[in-house]
């Protein structure tokens, strides 16, 4: 017999009050990143040795631009969750832990914004 209320069971949040959200998003972004990383590697091979103008023209292609934005979003999201897990596992000192978690979040969001705006700028200006 469970002492949990039906409402608590339906919410499925457990003792962490966050449920399996972290776990699910980590997997969802992982699946999304499989094709995106393959495209990144393809792009690296294509752009190898190319001058500035050629690289810029390549990124201005709508398909490449969309894939790049998706890579930036999914990549930083996935990295943020993964690094958060590493810090929670190994850093036991409260102050260091909070500072590192803040830093990870700031860098991840800043990276996302920078990457998104850069792709947008190249795409719009050609």
């Amino acid at each position, binding site marked *: 017999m469970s002492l949990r209320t039906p409402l608590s069971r339906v919410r499925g949040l457990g003792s962490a009050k966050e449920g399996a959200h972290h776990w699910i998003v980590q*997997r969802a972004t*992982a*699946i999304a*990143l*499989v094709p995106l*990383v*393959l495209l*990144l*590697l393809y792009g*690296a*091979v294509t*752009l*190898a*040795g*190319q*001058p*500035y103008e050629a*690289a*810029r023209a390549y*990124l201005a292609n709508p398909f490449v631009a969309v894939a*790049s934005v998706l*890579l*930036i979003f999914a*990549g*930083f999201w996935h*990295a943020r969750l*993964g*690094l958060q897990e*590493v810090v929670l596992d190994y850093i*036991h000192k409260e102050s260091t832990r909070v500072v590192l978690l803040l830093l990870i979040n700031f*860098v991840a969001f800043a*990276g996302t914004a*920078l*990457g998104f*705006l*850069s*792709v947008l*700028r*190249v795409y719009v200006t050609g």
Partner: protein
Amino acid sequence: MKGASYPSAAQADGTEIDLGALRRTIPPICAGFARDSERFRGDHMATTNEAKGRPLSPHVGIWRWSATMATSIFHRATGIAASVGLLMVTWFLVALAAGPQAFATFSAFAGHWFGQLVLFGFALSIIYHLLNGVRHLVWDGGKGFGVATATFWSWFSIVLSVVLTLGLWYLAPATIGF
């Protein structure tokens, strides 16, 4: 304590709080809190275990390396390395948007031996993390937990990631120079 009498406490509605019962209830609750807070502080737990001479579970250094253990550790390490690599991808995009001068700075770093080392480490990390990540997704589906199976795919991830990275370097030697 047995037989001790406690003063009664009258409440506004005329009934009385049984202070004796209250005193018998509070200590177990406090002990529970103390136990729980101790459980959340791993370091404190460890020192308690040592002080009381309890057996300790062996730490990392004592285990013989196995392929599955290696791939597990590599997954974390390459995840951290790939995060750094993602910053380099972002730098590439920012430089491309900012103009030829910024791009030249990026190219100079990418062409430097240190930049090449970072790029090679990033390539190896992202390829390994991708291959081994698929193994994790298979495990999430409840498959592939047999010892022989897990060992085989561990070696598969390690060997194939090295082969593919060298292949990428062969295909794109100038990724390095731009």
